[in-house]
């Protein structure tokens, strides 16, 4: 600190006094000097502070600027905090049967691809690869590897063993990428229901699985939706029943030398499909491509139960009698004239076997009289018949959850004349799928409520509007039981002591593609309901062009073909469904089990 100058230096004051000056001036002058010095000092200090503040501000903004630049220039990365197992949930959901058994799941495999620029010895790699995978062409691979291509898929899915063998080649240009693969562990069982998948958009590290048919396609969005949390899709199918039915149906198809077969097992009160088979079938793990030539309905991927439209013959008769009963036109014991042939619209309706001049309504069903049902159809009239069949779902595509279903529209007569009504009443002129028939039988026989067919497990029955009364439903079941149980019924082969089985046979000539009908080719169908006293299940069995030689005679009609197969299926599935034989229907006591 500088020496402070006193404000009133004695020497100067005395001198000023001597000269007659005001000594206060000296003091003021000194005060001013002192203030100036103080001001100068203050300025220096505040300048320094300003500078410091400026440096700090620039540094702070510079730091922010730098950070902004670094954020904007660095690569975008996923946020680190992920939800637990998010990778897993992104996978396609499993499909399980009604008891939780796996029908479709995913398996992690590897795919194999090549990057020729990385290869050290392309010729050797091509030769070795062709040795590991016999399906590959060494020459083509060599051309690919030595050409200009930078990236080549070699195999979409390879097994761990194959992967090791490729590793052993020791070629750095052969690389693997993880691949999720759809696995159907049960092979061909329920193949038509499941459909199949293929790879959609694919990259090196993953590929999306896309459904191509069946429920895999119908529920594609659901199965791929990560929001479901990996919850499996539960079908109404029962794997054990499905496998048993397919096995018996296959044996039956071979025995009857049929070219195809199909079966539908439906829960009558809910419309749930417990099993649905179509033969020949395929392995959904390796789904064949659609055929490019020949009849597409002969291909294994064709689902006869849903896509196949057939004139199902006499199985339709029960709908005519039920409607006549419901309308109060007849009762089961009313006599209907069955004298043939019945001429209508230049067309003669005949019966398979000539019957006596008149039959009761029950006998029209039991003996399967075309003329009898045609007469009933005349009384029902066209509009009422159409309305009834539409309510049963026979005139629209089936609402079942299969991607193939909405495109399969029943073929119906156009125009729908009285003659059409008469032929439709015994199953000619209207082509529907076996699934349609199963739905119709369920609706008619479960007590009279329309059901909607479904492949999804339902918690409780969903009863639709009533189509016939409880009494008409019971009367129809009784008629169907007599078809099986009475001596002259057409389905006596379906009889089994202890079970109350009701059913109706149908044998319809196959229509030619060129018009008209084949003489010797039949669609044989057996539609059955059991137990008739408490209708729970409806089973439809259909054979395409069956033929069997019994006692030196060629038999094609349903009573000799579809009925025995259906009988065999019933014996296998009844215990699986937990239906005990009851003493009431025991019939022959020696055969009564237990």
């Amino acid at each position, binding site marked *: 600190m500088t020496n402070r100058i006193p404000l009133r230096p004695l020497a100067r004051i005395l001198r000023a006094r001597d000269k007659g000056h005001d000594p206060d001036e000296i003091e003021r002058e000194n005060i001013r000097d002192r203030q100036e010095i103080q001001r100068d000092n203050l300025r220096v200090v505040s300048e320094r502070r300003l500078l410091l503040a400026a440096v700090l501000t620039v540094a702070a903004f510079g730091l922010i600027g730098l950070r902004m630049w670094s954020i904007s220039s660095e690569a975008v990365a996923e946020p*680190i*905090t*992920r939800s*637990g*197992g998010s*990778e*897993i949930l992104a996978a396609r959901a499993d499909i399980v049967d009604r008891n939780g*058994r*796996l029908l479709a*799941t*995913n*398996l*992690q495999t590897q795919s194999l691809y090549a990057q020729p620029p990385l290869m050290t010895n392309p010729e050797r790699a091509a030769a070795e690869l062709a040795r590991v995978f016999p399906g590959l062409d060494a020459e083509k691979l060599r051309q690919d590897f030595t050409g200009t291509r930078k990236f080549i898929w070699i195999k979409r899915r390879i097994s761990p063993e194959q992967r090791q063998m490729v590793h052993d080649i020791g070629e750095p240009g052969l690389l693997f990428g993880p691949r999720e693969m759809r*696995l159907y*562990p*049960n*092979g061909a*069982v329920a193949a038509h229901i499941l459909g199949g998948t293929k790879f959609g958009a694919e990259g090196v590290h993953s590929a999306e699985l896309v459904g191509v048919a069946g429920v895999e396609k119908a529920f594609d969005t659901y199965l791929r939706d990560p929001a479901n949390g990996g919850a499996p899709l539960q079908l109404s199918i029962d*794997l*054990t029943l499905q*496998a*048993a039915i397919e*096995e018996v149906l296959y044996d039956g198809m071979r025995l009857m030398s049929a070219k195809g077969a199909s079966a539908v097992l439906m829960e009558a009160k809910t419309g749930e499909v417990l099993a649905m088979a179509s033969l020949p079938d395929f392995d959904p793990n390796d789904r064949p491509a659609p055929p490019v030539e020949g009849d597409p309905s002969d291909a294994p991927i064709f689902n006869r139960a849903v896509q196949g439209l057939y004139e199902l013959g006499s199985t339709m008769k029960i709908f005519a009698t039920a409607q006549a009963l419901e309308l109060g036109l007849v009762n089961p014991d009313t006599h209907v004239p069955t004298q043939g042939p019945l001429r209508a619209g230049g067309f003669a309706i005949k019966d398979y076997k000539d019957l006596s001049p008149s039959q009761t309504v029950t006998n029209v069903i039991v003996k399967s009289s075309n003329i009898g049902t045609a007469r009933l159809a005349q009384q029902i009239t066209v509009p009422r018949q159409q309305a009834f069949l539409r309510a049963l779902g026979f005139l629209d595509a089936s609402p079942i959850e299969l991607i193939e279903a909405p495109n399969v529209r029943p073929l119906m007569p156009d125009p729908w004349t009285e003659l059409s009504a008469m032929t439709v009443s015994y199953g000619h002129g209207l082509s529907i799928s076996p699934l349609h028939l199963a739905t119709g039988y369920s609706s008619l026989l479960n007590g009279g409520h329309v059901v909607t067919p479904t492949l999804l497990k339902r918690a409780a029955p969903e009863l639709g509007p009533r189509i016939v009364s409880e009494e008409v439903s019971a009367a129809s079941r009784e008629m169907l039981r007599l078809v099986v149980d009475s001596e002259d019924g057409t389905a006596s082969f379906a009889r*089994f002591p*202890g*079970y109350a089985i009701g059913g109706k046979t149908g044998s319809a000539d196959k229509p030619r593609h060129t018009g008209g009908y084949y003489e010797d080719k039949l669609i044989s169908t057996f539609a059955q309901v059991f137990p008739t006293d408490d209708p729970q299940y409806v089973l439809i069995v259909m054979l395409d062009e069956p033929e069997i030689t019994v006692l030196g005679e060629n038999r094609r009609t349903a009573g000799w073909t579809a009925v025995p197969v259906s009988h065999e299926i019933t*014996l*296998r599935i*009844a*215990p*699986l469904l937990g*239906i*005990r*034989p009851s003493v009431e229907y025991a019939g022959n006591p020696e055969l009564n*089990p*237990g």
Partner: protein
Amino acid sequence: MRSLLYFLSVALVIGLAYWAYQQNLETQQALKRVTKLQDKIAATHEALAVQRAEWAYLNRPDRLRELAELNFGSLELLPMDPGHFGSIDEVSFPPLPGLSQDGVVRSASGSNGGRP
């Protein structure tokens, strides 16, 4: 007094910096652990899926049927038919403890004689 204040604030800054650094480190380690655990969960899920697929594959109806046929000699398994229904009294249960060979009930607890 003033210098004490300075010292305290500097010490506070150093302390806070140390704490913040520590937290940052711990967070990073926790995140690393979470990532590792998630990878492990994913691997376990995958292994589980493989096991489930394998179980389903080994229990496929076709294979079980073949096995039942192959082992018919020892197992004598047949497809179920309606004759296989039985009643509960046809099942031979192991004798109840306290029940002697002659069927006389000795202990009080087994005196109801009922089967399970």
